């Protein structure tokens, strides 16, 4: 298919009416075509006007209360906002974070997995990821950008035996001679180095990892950019981390 074929599919994509195979093909094209991405945004704006046509309806007042009370709960339970944390020395902030178990996001996972499955060609690894998640006692930690503008995200599934699989997407390319490196953080201790990896041209990466013995109890995970061979201690600011 050529650019114009994809362009023709965009209005239907804005209505999310493409069949799965077409949608996947178009999504891959969108990754690399800024013009089509812009087009999609415009068509989505048109499609969104359709939302104004049903009769407006008033939800019961309890919905508002429930939303605000849930939001308030979030505020009292959430870990220190990332932006505050980055202003301090982020490595030293893990002491307090260590006390808080890594957030296990099974609900987010089901949504996230659908996206990751589509984005990631390495289906075999995806399968392993799912298998790992389904292992009794397995946990999943979600990593996101330290800078709120970043689009990169990752999920790390791991079990008590130290089997771990990292799936990352939308990672920017690293400069020649550099690679991303995974870190495990246990309480106040210095980060334990994990493997290095380089994403594919679309920014996706899957990393299979055996967690070092001393990192089995890690509950915070981070990714930095390091020299290709990896470092023993992080040499750059955290790029992605769990919280």
């Amino acid at each position, binding site marked *: 298919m050529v650019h114009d074929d994809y362009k023709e599919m965009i209005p239907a994509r804005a209505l999310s009416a*493409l069949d799965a195979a077409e949608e996947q093909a178009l999504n891959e094209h969108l990754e690399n075509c800024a013009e089509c991405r812009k087009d999609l*945004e415009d068509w989505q704006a048109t*499609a969104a*006007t*359709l939302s104004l046509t*049903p009769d407006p309806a008033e*939800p019961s007042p309890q*919905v508002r209360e429930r939303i605000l009370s*849930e939001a308030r709960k979030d505020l009292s339970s959430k870990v220190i906002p990332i932006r505050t944390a980055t202003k301090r020395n982020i490595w030293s902030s893990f002491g307090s974070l260590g006390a808080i178990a890594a957030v296990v996001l099974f609900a987010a996972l089901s949504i996230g997995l659908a996206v990751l499955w589509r984005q990631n060609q390495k289906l075999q690894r995806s399968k392993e990821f799912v298998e790992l998640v389904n292992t009794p006692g397995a946990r999943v930690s979600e990593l996101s950008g330290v800078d709120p503008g970043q689009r990169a995200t990752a999920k790390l599934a791991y079990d008590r035996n130290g089997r771990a699989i990292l799936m990352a997407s939308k990672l920017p390319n690293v400069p020649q001679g550099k690679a991303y490196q995974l870190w495990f953080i246990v309480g106040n201790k210095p980060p334990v180095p994990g493997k290095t990896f380089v994403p594919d041209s679309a920014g996706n990466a899957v990393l299979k990892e055996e967690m070092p013995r001393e990192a089995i109890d890690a509950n915070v995970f981070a990714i930095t950019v390091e020299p290709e061979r990896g470092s023993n201690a992080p040499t750059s600011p955290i790029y992605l981390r769990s919280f």
Partner: protein
Amino acid sequence: MWLNPFLRRGPYISRLQPEDDVKLLKAIAARDEAALAQLYDRYRVILFGLLMRILNNREEAEDVLQEVFLQVWRKAEDFDENRGRPFTWLVTLGRSRGIDRLRTLAARDRVAEAGAREAVEEISDAATDAFKSEQRGLVSKALAQLPDEQKRPLMLAYFDGLTQSEIATRLGAPLGTVKTRMRTGLMNLREQLAGKGESFGF
């Protein structure tokens, strides 16, 4: 907690412009609860109407509405003003959550109570937003200009979450024809709305 003084100015202002929505979303990303309440008050009637149209069930629609605003609360920083307007972002999120729920319910073998649309409560005056009702009139008018054969695929896709193949089956029309009509329909809608002020963002 950071409080945006603009948002603390007092009673809800009904004629907020899109740039105000951007401010609201930024304040929400900064964990300002009052901003969340304002955004909810501004959009609840449109979004709930949309969810009722999709789900045709009050309880489900309210549940999804709550889910949508909690997602806004948790993901407001994902909104990028360079990539579209708050209205589009919010409505696209609401619609896709609504369609997700519709599919879940369908998977549970829900019997559609076709035609038996639930009664909708009267809308309070305070919730009627002059700005949006004007836009609503424009969209309805524009849609009315479309031939039925173009309008139906749009409606089936947007409100019933059907794919082009499913629409072709439903309408007993060739897939190619459905594709063309859907595209032409959306193009015509855009043309009809173009030049109707900046309010639609295209």
